[in-house]
């Protein structure tokens, strides 16, 4: 008998405009705040060769004014309404969102509709945001120890195609060669209403919200929607190894990546892999914390996760399971890898301890419930499940799906992580006592 786990419930309403825009409304009248999220079905993977980082640079351009709004107007309207905003670019999608007091709902919808009509792509805005993006990369990657490790670098070892393996932040040379024509083409191709999901969560009446959506988004012209290529790659047939030099890192680090099943079409396998990562590294009772940190004193910290950014549901096929660690002694890498293999083998061969699976899945569900408390996160999650999995409802169903995962499935997930199927990226620490 599996443990009883609480599940969220969102009273979802779906709607589709004539121009193809998919709309999702999840009312919650408990606090006077709303979340608005627009997700476009384009991410790093769809960047053309020679234009690494372009999807993210383009995301910045979507904040630089639109058909009816000058530069800076978007920020000023959101913040002077008491709200906050952001956007982010992922492997398979790009999101734009606002959290607002509920009396700013119509204003927020207008702002999103206006940039879906078209951003103001000018030479001046492009030149300005090119510098901003380069500074974003400097602060997060080039000037930071472990910057971009491993998400920028591991895909180039684990995957083969340009789409899956390139640096999503982009090289400066590629970013600098981007033109306003590139941006106009990218918008035309990927930012059609039919290629987007709009989600509204929080303090709204469903009928009022849908009426406002029709009013502001309804007149946006329908455009053709690009067919998404299949980016899948077969499992590795031999171990791959590479190194990455980090001039600022004081201690070495390693990231071990494995290709995992298609998260959309083989969801149950992925849920088993999620539970495996928690068995391996979530908290002081987990297998690798006990072995590598507490018993063998080989690593400073270790974490295992699905999805390049640590969210197992953030990507379509292909995606990765990563085990990453910082460690003080550079010569310890092979001992660390051997210990990881032994612990994976123990799970695969001997199974789990009594109560281990239930406590781990109880925590997984409680963590995900907690993340849904904020209306903005909830709205973004619903939009993401609607876009990538085709069903926002999946977010409500996950606790029950986790409850159904059996020990055998977790053992099978561990058994799949064989040494000849992994990519090992070793970070060479060039920092240390500098100053």
């Amino acid at each position: 008998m599996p443990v009883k786990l609480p599940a969220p419930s969102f009273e979802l309403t779906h709607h589709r405009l004539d121009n193809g825009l998919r709309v999702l409304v999840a009312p919650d009248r408990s606090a006077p705040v709303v979340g608005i999220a627009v997700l476009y079905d384009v991410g790093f993977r769809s960047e053309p060769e020679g234009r690494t980082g372009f999807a993210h640079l383009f995301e910045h351009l979507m904040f630089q004014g639109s058909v009816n709004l000058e530069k800076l107007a978007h920020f000023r309207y959101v913040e002077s309404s008491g709200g906050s905003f952001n956007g982010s670019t992922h492997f398979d999608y790009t999101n734009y969102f606002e959290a607002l007091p509920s009396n700013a709902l119509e204003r927020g919808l207008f702002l999103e509709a206006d940039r879906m009509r078209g951003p103001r792509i000018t030479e001046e805005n492009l030149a300005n945001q090119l510098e901003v993006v380069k500074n974003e990369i400097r602060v997060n990657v080039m000037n930071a120890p472990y910057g971009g490790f491993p998400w920028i670098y591991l895909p180039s070892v684990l995957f083969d195609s340009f789409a899956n393996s390139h640096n999503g932040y982009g090289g400066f040379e590629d970013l600098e060669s981007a033109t306003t024509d590139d941006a106009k083409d990218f918008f035309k191709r990927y930012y059609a209403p039919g290629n987007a999901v709009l989600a509204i969560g929080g303090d709204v009446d469903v009928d009022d919200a849908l009426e406002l959506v029709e009013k502001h988004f309804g007149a946006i012209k329908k455009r053709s929607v690009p067919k998404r290529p299949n980016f899948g790659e077969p499992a590795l047939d031999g171990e791959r190894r590479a190194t990455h030099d980090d001039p600022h890192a004081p201690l070495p680090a390693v990231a071990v990546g494995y290709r995992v099943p298609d998260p959309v079409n083989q969801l149950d396998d992925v849920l088993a892999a999620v539970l495996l990562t928690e068995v391996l590294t979530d908290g002081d009772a987990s297998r690798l914390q006990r072995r590598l940190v507490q018993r063998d004193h080989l690593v400073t910290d270790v974490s295992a996760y699905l999805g390049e950014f640590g969210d197992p549901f953030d990507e379509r096929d292909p995606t990765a399971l990563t085990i990453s660690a910082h460690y003080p002694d550079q010569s310890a890498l092979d001992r660390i890898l051997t210990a990881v293999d032994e612990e994976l083998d123990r799970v695969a061969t001997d199974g789990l301890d009594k109560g281990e699976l239930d406590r781990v899945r109880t925590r997984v569900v409680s963590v995900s419930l907690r993340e849904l408390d904020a209306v903005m996160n909830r709205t973004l999650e619903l939009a993401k499940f609607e876009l990538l999995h085709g069903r926002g409802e999946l977010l409500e169903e996950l606790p029950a799906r986790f409850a159904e995962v059996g020990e055998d499935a977790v053992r099978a997930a561990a058994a799949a992580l064989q040494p000849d199927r992994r990519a090992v990226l070793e970070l060479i620490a060039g920092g240390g006592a500098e100053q």
Partner: protein
Amino acid sequence: MSAALAVPALTEPRAARKLSSTETVLDNGLRVIAVRKPGIPIVEVRLRLPFLSAKAKHPAQAMVLAEALLTGAAGRDRSELAAAIQGLGGDLHASVDADRLVVSGNVLATNLRKLLNVVGDLVTEPSYAAADVETERDRLVEKLTIMRARPSVVAAEALATRMWGDHPYAVDLAQPQDVAAVTPGQLKALHKAMVRPGAGVLVLVGDLPPGRMIAAAEAALAGWTGAAPRPRVPALPAAPGGPLLIVHRRGSVQSSFRFGGAALTRTDPDYPALQLANLVFGGYFTSRWTENLREDKGYTYGPHSRIDHHALGSSLTLSVEVATPVTAPSYLETLYELGRLATLPVTETEVASVQQYAIGSLALSTATQAGLASTLSALSAFGLGLDWVTGHPARLLAVSVDQIAEAAARFFAPTAFTSVVVGDADAIAAPLAALGAVER
């Protein structure tokens, strides 16, 4: 080209629901604040204990104590403890700074009582077993090495040293050699002396009746005793100002500026005006500093200014990371924006914008159980509570343009700041020296 569409007006705001809240002081002196916040079936837990001390070895011992607190209690080892907490759908961790030790966590609401029992075990019967202390000590030395490789940490340490001199606030992170010398006996003594309920505050926020949460706390923590510690700590010195300190960091492709100054406490009548002045300067995206340095010049990904409230006083910190070749121009623009705010009035439009943003961001940050719990825990250290949160919008709306100008003149003058920059000194020193006094 058709006529531009108008941006829709705001509609009538809806008031937030009043939350039910109860506060009590247990017989052992622990204050317990419980707030029912409808929503997900989780309760957020924040136990805050004063941890200020002027003893030289305190920072290292306090940091190791926070790392080792959860490694065993009441006969359970660290793995058994962690498994028990995980099985409740819960989490607990400890963090420490110069002012306080906080044990924070969350748990499925049905398991609150059991999680508080674990907290009770941690505070009354901690193990600090030699092997676990040694493991955590070594890890902490490694973690400190990693932290100090970050330019933001180098800059924060340089600014704290320059601002606070030999005051305990000058030390944010302990030195590795001090950490390496910490013993289990010292941790037990520190725990006994300072992990006491006397001046502590426990905040519980979740979808449960407040009375039930308080009863659970009382049952779990009644056996914990000890009067509040009374550390002798000198008053906070005035920040000295002086030349811009340049700290060299090899291979830096950016320069990290930190400007520190005094600020007002939340209960000062002029605090709302200072809070708004800070937003106008660099506290939100629409701020002057962001619009100038990022959206106009592209010198940075994002500058930010904020007010921090410490037990002994409040401070203002401005932070920005800029590309190395534009370090001096960024400094020039920053001095310009500071001088402009300190000497010229802000506009009515700016005031209306920051008022709405301050009110809205307070509402958003307290709209989740976790956000409300953290906010109430922070406020509790100053004797403030939910009333302060609900009363603050009216205080913000009452601020005038003139009051903001007064606060800005007092706190945002370029001469009011103590400043440091971390970067490639060989490349930035000469251009910076052209703009004002520098020191290497």
